[in-house]
């Protein structure tokens, strides 16, 4: 029997507004159509009315879970146009902020997976472990989400010995918990039954659609910007690219957990080898006319900024693209052929962020 089921645009199972039209045959999804645009706010246009310092604040608020990557990539574009050199110390500190955000973001998504497969104690356990990262953020940057770490020509914060010791101590606390959680997520029967072989994205489709981030790496495609086009201090602090071949929800979950482990290593390596130097090189830099494109690896994948300036205080044109913008189309490949109950699990596996996709 064929039925049509609408989910959304506002639905209790969705975190953000999106409208799915699902064609069902029995219990199996035959076709899926997605309609977006419910949170389009015209931030891109607003960014062109603000000056270069105000845009630091604005870009940080485009997205919550990858909030640090937006000002990070934006300042790199401004610095490229103005030819500003950033000190080595500032570059290391940028990596620290970014990796801390990555751990927190991945763990949030993974706990949502546990919630959706119905393993609620696992969800609370993951969220509790993640709380260590939230504590670090609050203690060092003064905020649990928007860290406001980046500024033009450097960073707004510095780490002294006490703070470094504190972060190391908390990471020491986190790592055994992560190991334990990884073991449960990788081998637990409930998790496996709902994730293995579900929502498969073949490698060829991932390449064709230009999929990025952990979603691509779960299908064996490496386009990690940190590895392919290193920026900040990623030429010295090399990330291990975590690849899986299966392309299902389980594979994407494994990629995220391995990246959490790798990010812990990167944070440790960065804060124990912090180079000396000032964190900011220029207080009020002049931004000449020019254009630049910069990229960074946000928790969800590749983030790109295009900036065009004309010598005034405001950008002439600024355009950015978040990873979910690309990964969205992958759902059309992943969802058909699966059970209706798996739609939410698959949807969550691309780690969607709708408000930053629509801006």
């Amino acid at each position: 029997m064929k039925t049509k089921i609408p989910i959304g645009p506002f639905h209790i199972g969705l975190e953000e507004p999106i409208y799915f039209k699902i064609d069902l045959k029995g219990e199996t999804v035959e076709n899926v159509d997605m309609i977006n645009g419910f949170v389009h706010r015209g931030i891109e246009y607003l960014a062109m009315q603000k000056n270069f310092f105000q845009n630091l604040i604005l870009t940080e608020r485009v997205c919550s879970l990858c909030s640090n990557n937006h000002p990070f990539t934006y300042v790199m574009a401004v610095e490229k146009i103005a030819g500003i050199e950033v000190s080595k110390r500032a570059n290391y500190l940028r990596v620290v902020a970014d990796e801390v955000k990555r751990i927190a973001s991945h763990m949030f998504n993974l706990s949502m997976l546990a919630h959706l497969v119905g393993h609620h104690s696992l969800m609370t356990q993951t969220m509790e472990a993640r709380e260590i990262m939230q504590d670090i953020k609050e203690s060092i940057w003064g905020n649990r989400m928007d860290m406001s770490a980046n500024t033009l020509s450097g960073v707004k914060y510095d780490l002294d010995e006490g703070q470094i010791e504190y972060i190391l101590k908390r990471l020491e606390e986190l790592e055994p918990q992560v190991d334990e959680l990884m073991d449960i997520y990788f081998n637990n029967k409930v998790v496996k039954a709902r994730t293995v072989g579900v929502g498969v994205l073949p490698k060829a489709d991932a390449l064709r659609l230009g999929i990025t981030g952990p979603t691509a790496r779960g299908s064996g495609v490496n386009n990690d910007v940190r590895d392919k086009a290193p920026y900040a201090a990623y030429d010295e602090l090399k990330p291990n690219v975590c690849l899986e071949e299966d392309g299902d929800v389980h594979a994407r979950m494994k990629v995220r957990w391995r990246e959490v482990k790798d990010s812990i290593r990167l944070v440790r390596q960065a804060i124990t080898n912090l180079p000396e130097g000032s964190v900011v090189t220029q207080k009020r830099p002049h931004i000449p006319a020019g254009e630049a494109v910069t990229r960074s690896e946000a928790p969800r994948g590749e983030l790109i900024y295009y900036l065009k300036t004309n010598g005034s205080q405001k950008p002439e044109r600024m355009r950015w693209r978040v990873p979910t913008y690309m990964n969205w189309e992958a759902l059309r490949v992943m969802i058909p052929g699966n059970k209706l109950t798996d739609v939410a699990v698959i949807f969550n596996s691309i780690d969607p962020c709708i408000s930053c996709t629509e801006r």
Partner: protein
Amino acid sequence: MKETLKRKVKSEIKERLEPHSYDLREEIDEKGNIQLWLKLHNRKDILHIAQLVRDFGGRCVIITAYKKDDHHVLVYHLDIDGMLLNVEVELFDNKVDSITPVLDSANWTEREFKEMFGIELVGHPNPKRLFLDESIAEGILGEYMPLSQAMNGAATCCMWEKIESERHQNEN
């Protein structure tokens, strides 16, 4: 390795495009990442470039549209194994050929500049609206819209007064 790829891409560009129909410059940052900036004089050539990127196994990252004087400019950001190829095309007739049949990854971004800037898109397989509702005119991003009109009086008492007056009308 990055150098070899760059040389290969550059020689392919030279082979596939007419001489003097483009300007090419390259940019290398302090980490050794290469970006190519290509300016096409003929907007039709974008199809050749899309085919080139496809042959190298690349993808479309995003396309930026902006208004310059009286016409639109598109900047295609294409990625070939970590190397960015930025292609600038000026649209004097406000029309452009879709590269989605060649590069699937350009699907959304082409639909977005179509609806936001009102650029005519030729040959897109699915030219439906992406974010904006059908009732909103294309090219809305370039228009001046007063806040009071955009919010339909929702921020002031106007809306409630309107509802109140209409309610009483219905009663009669």
